[in-house]
């Protein structure tokens, strides 16, 4: 039963990712990414990472992809035309690159054929995540606020009209 769900979600995620690769129009690319993210949410729930699953929907689907769609629609950006192909030969290097990369990954994944023995007892409920975030990872958490502030200022300064 669980394996069936995994196959379904993984299939949807892969379809979305391949669609992202093949589509020229950025609007469809954004929607494909959204499909993949939705499938990943399902996988996170299967992995009992409930907080991460919900945050994934709120941040990625609810904010980031909407922002992309907003920019794409506001400027009515269509697919890039073909004649700008100045270094088109470079993209054929992507294929051997992909083969080498996936080979390396699968070589590493081979080490985890057996499921590992758990070292802790924690499950991704909100309370447990929050407790860890505000004790062991307090300094990095505070630093993210600096990062976000920098990003806000950067975005406002870049996008404002002179």
């Amino acid at each position: 039963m669980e394996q069936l769900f995994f196959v379904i979600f993984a299939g949807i995620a892969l379809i979305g990712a391949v669609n992202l690769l093949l589509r020229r129009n950025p609007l469809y690319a954004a929607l494909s990414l959204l499909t993949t993210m939705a499938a990943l949410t399902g996988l996170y729930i299967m992995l009992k990472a409930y907080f991460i699953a919900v945050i994934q929907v709120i941040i990625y689907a609810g904010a980031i992809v909407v922002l992309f769609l907003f920019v794409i629609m506001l400027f009515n950006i269509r697919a890039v035309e073909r004649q700008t192909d100045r270094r088109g030969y470079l993209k054929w290097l992507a294929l051997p690159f992909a083969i080498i990369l996936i080979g390396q990954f699968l070589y590493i994944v081979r080490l985890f054929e057996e499921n590992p023995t758990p070292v802790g007892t924690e499950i991704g409920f909100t309370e447990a995540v929050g407790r860890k975030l505000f004790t062991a990872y307090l300094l990095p958490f505070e630093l993210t606020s600096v990062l976000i502030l920098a990003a806000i200022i950067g975005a406002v300064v870049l996008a404002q009209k002179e």
Partner: protein
Amino acid sequence: MVPMSWYLALGAVLFTIGAVSVIVKRDILSMLLAIELMLNSVNLTLVTFSSYFRELSGQILVFFVMVVAAAEAGVGLAIVVLLFRNRQTVDVDQASMLKL
């Protein structure tokens, strides 16, 4: 119970597709989207390890990755808007010069 290697393999495949998309695509919006896909595949791997080892540090790291992704999307899209306003294109090959 699904074997852990299935999740890891899926993460690997998604990362590769994302990396190839960054290389193949020419418009900056699709490239940013492909980078988001790569970040997502890394998140999947982190959550998998975190869940199978029953240790939440991986999920905390995912939280930080999401913050970085949001900041990156905000600044990246601001740059896209600027590029589009100045050159009326989102083609990265058109933006290879350092001046307007």
